């Protein structure tokens, strides 16, 4: 069972008293912008790549050596500066007991059925075991890619996305509205597992951690609940990611998360000057060890170029109380 919880973060607005708090919250609510996402739709691996490597699905997804071959083939095909793992968004949920259907490979693994019908049941989720199953293989593959001298981006999903595979999303949204303490408790427990996951990835040499939670975006939650989600989870989680990470680990936020932090006044953008114009991916690699967190663009947007040679780093605001 998942134990522990992330450190509590008080509401910044509450510091000013109830009336001002409401005003502040309302004023920041309107400022969370949405990032139009067209990249998270990519999941699974093309049949063409699997056939070219003479690998079969889903067997290949269970062997680190095959995962490495696929990741490198995808990187070469797309011409990116890094490999990206895992190939699906279900890994975290599966590792917490989620029931997965592997299908025919066209879309990659999917949630087969919901694990729970009640949010409270999910408080009993098991902790992630990093020594077995697909989780172990993906982490091993990360290590092998790094040993070959290549960069790998590990995509980590946030609690809304993970819960979407474990329970009807309707229940998640309702709990955020009706039982915010339950949501905060559950998302905090998931957060602890994600922090452990990131540590394990760092042990394998991973230096680039991408964090996204598109199911919990402002477009779906609306500005009020999106701001609440930042208060109840995202800010604390990102803060703890930064506190625990190694100096040479770069956190790559999904722009939806960046906008949520900016819109709630929890973060600001600062320029980091690169040697010259380059793609976003190349810029991020160049910034490893120099900055802690980026997030102006989706890492999957492989054609996005930093024409002026400036990478925007995301800096949490020091006045945000944790």
């Amino acid at each position, binding site marked *: 069972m998942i134990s522990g919880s992330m450190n509590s973060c008080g509401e910044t607005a509450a510091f000013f008293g109830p009336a001002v708090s409401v005003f502040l919250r309302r004023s920041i609510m309107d400022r969370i912008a949405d990032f139009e996402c067209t990249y998270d739709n990519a999941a699974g691996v093309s049949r063409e790549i699997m056939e070219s490597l003479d690998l079969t699905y889903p067997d290949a997804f269970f062997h680190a050596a095959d995962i490495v071959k696929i990741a490198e083939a995808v990187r070469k095909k797309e011409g990116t500066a890094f490999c990206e793992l895992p190939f699906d968004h279900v890994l975290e949920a599966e590792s917490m007991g989620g029931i997965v259907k592997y299908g025919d490979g066209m*879309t990659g693994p999917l949630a087969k059925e919901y694990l729970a019908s009640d949010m409270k049941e999910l408080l009993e989720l098991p902790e992630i075991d990093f020594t077995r199953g697909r989780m172990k293989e993906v982490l091993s593959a990360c290590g092998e890619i790094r040993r070959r001298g290549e960069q790998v981006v590990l995509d980590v999903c946030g609690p809304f996305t993970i819960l979407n595979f474990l329970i009807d999303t*309707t229940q998640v*949204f*309702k709990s955020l509205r009706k039982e915010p303490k339950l949501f905060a408790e559950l998302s905090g427990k998931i957060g602890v597992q994600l922090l452990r996951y990131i540590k394990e990835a760092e042990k394998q040499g991973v230096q680039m951690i991408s964090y996204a939670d598109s199911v919990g975006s402002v477009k*779906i*939650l*609306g*500005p009020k609940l999106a701001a609440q989600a930042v208060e109840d989870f995202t800010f604390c989680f990102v803060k703890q990611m930064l506190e625990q990470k190694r100096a040479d680990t770069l956190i790559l936020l999904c722009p939806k998360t960046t906008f949520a932090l900016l819109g709630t006044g929890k973060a600001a953008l600062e320029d980091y000057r690169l040697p010259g114009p380059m793609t976003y991916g190349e810029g991020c690699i160049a910034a490893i060890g120099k900055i802690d967190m980026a997030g102006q663009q989706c890492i999957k947007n492989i054609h996005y170029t930093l024409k002026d040679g400036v990478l925007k780093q995301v800096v949490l605001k020091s006045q945000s109380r944790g």
Partner: protein
Amino acid sequence: MNRSKEDLLQSLSRSVVEMEEKEITETAREYIDAGYPAFDGIMDGLADGMKKVSDLFDEEEYFVTDVLLCSDAMYAGLDVLKPHLEQDKDVSCRKKAVIGVVEGDTHDIGKNLVRIMLETGGFEMYDLGRDVPSDKFIDKVKETGADLLCMSTLMTTTMTGMKDVIDKLKADGIRDKVKVMIGGSPISQKYADKIGADGYSANAVEAVQLAKKLTEGNGHGER
């Protein structure tokens, strides 16, 4: 003092908009106890409230989570009113619609929203859920004699599943018996035209208008 029918209808409508499950149940009971017709309570109370919710959603005042909670209130009211419906109104004229997310895709937030909106728009909904195999869509259309088939997907890799369903409807000789509308992030009118769907909707509010337009005068045919 007993409240008038108009007062009670307004209260039902307002309770939907304000997501008041408990209050709506009490109001619906009061409405039935006063002897007013359940059908009017549903259409002029609950559906009226959901129409306002739909407008608020369209104006980006309400979001997905708000609509879900409003629909909870609506269903709570419906639970009270529905058992009294068949005694005073024949509802067999409601259009039937089958809805689901195509095979290989589990993104169902948009689909759930469209289902709720269509339900409150007067459609009798058959929700197949997410990751639905093509044959299951066909079987349900045949079983229910649906007027409308709605499919959605968020992924480019599963879009082709929509065409598979339409091709199977043709192969089974029932394509002209059911209207097909599609939606989802990568879907466009161009894609709908390409695969032979009858319509495409960009959002849940437009979906209701499109569904009504497509099924106008489209009675339940014998299959």
